[in-house]
């Protein structure tokens, strides 16, 4: 037995000592801004976990600003400016963008439960759904950019932090991190690891704005789209997913969300995004959503005036604020 234990200790030590040294470097630099405390997450040189930013900003600021209106959804919520939304809300509303990258309905459910349990006011809610991500999983998202904060998910904080540490340890990230730290310069080969876009997170509303992208588009729209021509692939026209995405467990999540909204007498709208791929939301799924949200559901998926022109999109995934504005006008008519 002694021999066995000695071997285990020796074997483990060889592996853990170098890992501990790297862990110290990671905590010192904190590239994903999850170890230390920050008041402003804007202009990070490395891509951040948007869910973490949203959750932390809420925790820091809610007492001061007393938010009562919440926008939920993925990065596509960038099309919904809170200043535009506020025009349709009662006076004195305090909107907050509680979005997350690749947000799933599981994530929205957890956030609403968290708000409900922490005594937040839920006077107005706007939920943005998409056919490709909202019901793509039934549990926490994978990867350091998508995993949900343990504050809302209720899952292990240790696992959460390990996810980020592993992302840091990834050889490609580590290489780009070291080169960037030494040179301070962005190189196109660093895309996906080093954030070259200037992203502003409003320190009050948490609204994300990609300033560099908006400036480029405003300066010369033709040049903007010519540069991204390849991204706008030829589409197949309107079609529908063969299999519904909403599973039995999703229905439970939907019911829980509806219950919370009902309990708070929330004025809410659920929007299905108009996407470049023109895939129509599955009819069975629509039926389930209708049963849950009734007339508060608005479906803009498929082929329509919002999705026909590629100029309504930044690239093949995110639609522009002018579309968001038009949708708000329709749903609050």
């Amino acid at each position: 037995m002694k021999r066995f234990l000695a071997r285990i200790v020796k074997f483990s030590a060889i592996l853990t000592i170098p890992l501990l040294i790297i862990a110290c470097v990671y905590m010192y630099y904190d590239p994903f801004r999850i170890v230390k405390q920050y008041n402003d997450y804007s202009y990070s040189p490395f891509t951040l976990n948007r869910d973490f930013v949203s959750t932390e900003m809420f925790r820091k600021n809610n007492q001061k600003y007393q938010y009562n209106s919440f926008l939920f959804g993925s990065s596509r919520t960038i099309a919904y400016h809170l200043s535009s939304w506020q025009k349709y809300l009662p006076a004195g509303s305090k909107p907050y963008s509680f979005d997350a990258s690749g947000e799933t309905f599981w994530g929205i459910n957890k956030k609403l439960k968290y708000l409900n349990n922490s005594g937040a006011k839920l006077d107005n809610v706007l939920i943005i759904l998409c056919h490709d991500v909202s019901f793509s999983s039934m549990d926490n998202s994978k990867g350091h950019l998508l995993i949900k904060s343990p504050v809302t998910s209720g899952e292990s904080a240790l696992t959460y932090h390990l996810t980020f540490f592993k992302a840091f340890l990834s050889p490609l990230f580590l290489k780009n991190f070291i080169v960037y730290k030494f040179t301070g310069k962005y190189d196109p080969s660093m895309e996906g690891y080093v954030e070259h876009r200037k992203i502003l997170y409003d320190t009050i509303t948490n609204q994300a704005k990609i300033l560099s992208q908006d400036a480029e588009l405003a300066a010369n729209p033709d040049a903007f789209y010519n540069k991204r021509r390849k991204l706008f692939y030829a589409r197949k026209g309107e079609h529908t997913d063969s299999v519904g995405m909403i599973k039995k467990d999703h229905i439970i999540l939907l019911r829980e969300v509806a219950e919370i909204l009902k309990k708070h007498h929330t004025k809410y709208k659920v929007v299905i995004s108009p996407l470049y791929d023109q895939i129509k939301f599955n009819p069975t799924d629509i039926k389930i959503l209708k049963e849950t949200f009734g007339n508060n559901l608005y479906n803009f998926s498929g082929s329509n005036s919002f999705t026909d022109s590629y100029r309504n999109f930044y690239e093949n995934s995110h639609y522009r604020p002018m579309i968001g504005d038009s949708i708000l006008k329709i749903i609050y008519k």
Partner: protein
Amino acid sequence: MLFNSIGFAIFLPIIFFLYWFVFTKNYKYQNALLLISSYFFYACWDWRFTFLLVFSTALDYYSGIKMAEAKSKSLKKFYFAASIIINLGFLATFKYYNFFANSFADAVSHFGVHVSPWTLMIILPVGISFYTFHGLSYVIDIYNDKIKPERNFIDYSVFVSFFPLLVAGPIERATHLLPQIQRERTFDYTRAVDGLRQILWGLFKKVVIADQSAGFANLIFNNSANYNGSAHLLGAVFFTFQIYCDFSGYSDIALGTARLFGIELLKNFAFPYFSRDIAEFWRRWHISLSTWFRDYLYIPLGGSKAGTLTKVRNTFIIFIVSGFWHGANWTFIMWGFINALFIMPSILFKTNRKNLDTVAEGKNLPTLRELLSILMTFGLTVFAWIFFRAENISHAFDYLRRLFSKSLFAVPNILGKTSAATLVLVICLFVLIEWFGREKRYAIEYLGQKVRPSIRWAFYYILILMIFFYTGEKQQFIYFQF
């Protein structure tokens, strides 16, 4: 508690320490520790279902004793029937009730009668199919006078609920496991190291191959309309590796963990994807379940000793029941039916026991004939797995229609081609390692016998780092739902 969780990484060393350092002097104390830790392990899912486990265990324990003590054959039969009916009743209620209710409503709707089925909002207790089958084999063996009933309730409970096998097998037999529980166990360095090695290999299969394959397989199966034929083929192949590495990975961890406690469990997998025909595949896939069905269903039905027609009927029954055992869905039944069809030629031409040995035994490479047989068998299993994975029968046919289209020969239009290509490469390396270890109990067993320690340790570190990098949020094992 999942094997691939931090909780288990803490739980296992604690139990190991208590087992060998605190309770080492008396195997009865060790058994009590195993029982308590097994119930704790099970309660981590849902403590309420531990009562069901206790009831099921107590039922079979007392049925066994009562059968042995019964003074008349009819009384023995009564206890036997009561145990079987209650055991299967639980299984039917928790696992199949909603399926039958919905299927009945669907069936009568074809005749214009519309009924709203009264379905139950019930959770499937994890591992119920496994521990019920444990109990059933014990009761049937006593009824057939093959074994004597176990009088020690703790020993019997450990047999049913020993935590490595509790939730997804292997489905043990009393003749194999009970004698090990009833005797003293001594620590064996070689066996413990071997156990750790098998756990490591199982974790690698689960976290690196199964979970990564699942990502792509789920994406393609769930969004069928967006992908071309070759992507569908890739999705089916990824699922084929997902299910194998998920389940055999679990079995490796279970066997390795049991070995740490000085207990040998039944082998559950024997490199099934190197099979040369479907009959061989079924001798190598989920062995503990296949042999269970053989001994307790196929043989009592007449087995292969009766005429050809009976043999054909029995084969269909056993495969369809096996499919149904996996879950209350027509897709599983169809999967069983397809496998029965695949095995039929070898049953009819009596070639089902042709390949009893390991392919290319003692050689590095197979012959061309063997290679073609392996590839063909693999292709058939990939085809059958499509039905197993699909949401429903129409989804499966829709998937096949999209797979066998002109775009089968185009480049797969999946996102993350680099990750997919990396995964394919990792799978190829994995297949290679499995190939060279195919004559052992598990693929890397030979590392402990032939390879220099420095190389061996380097290999272990690579595996650990890959597990570390690939592990995301802990993923449920597929077979837990069965």
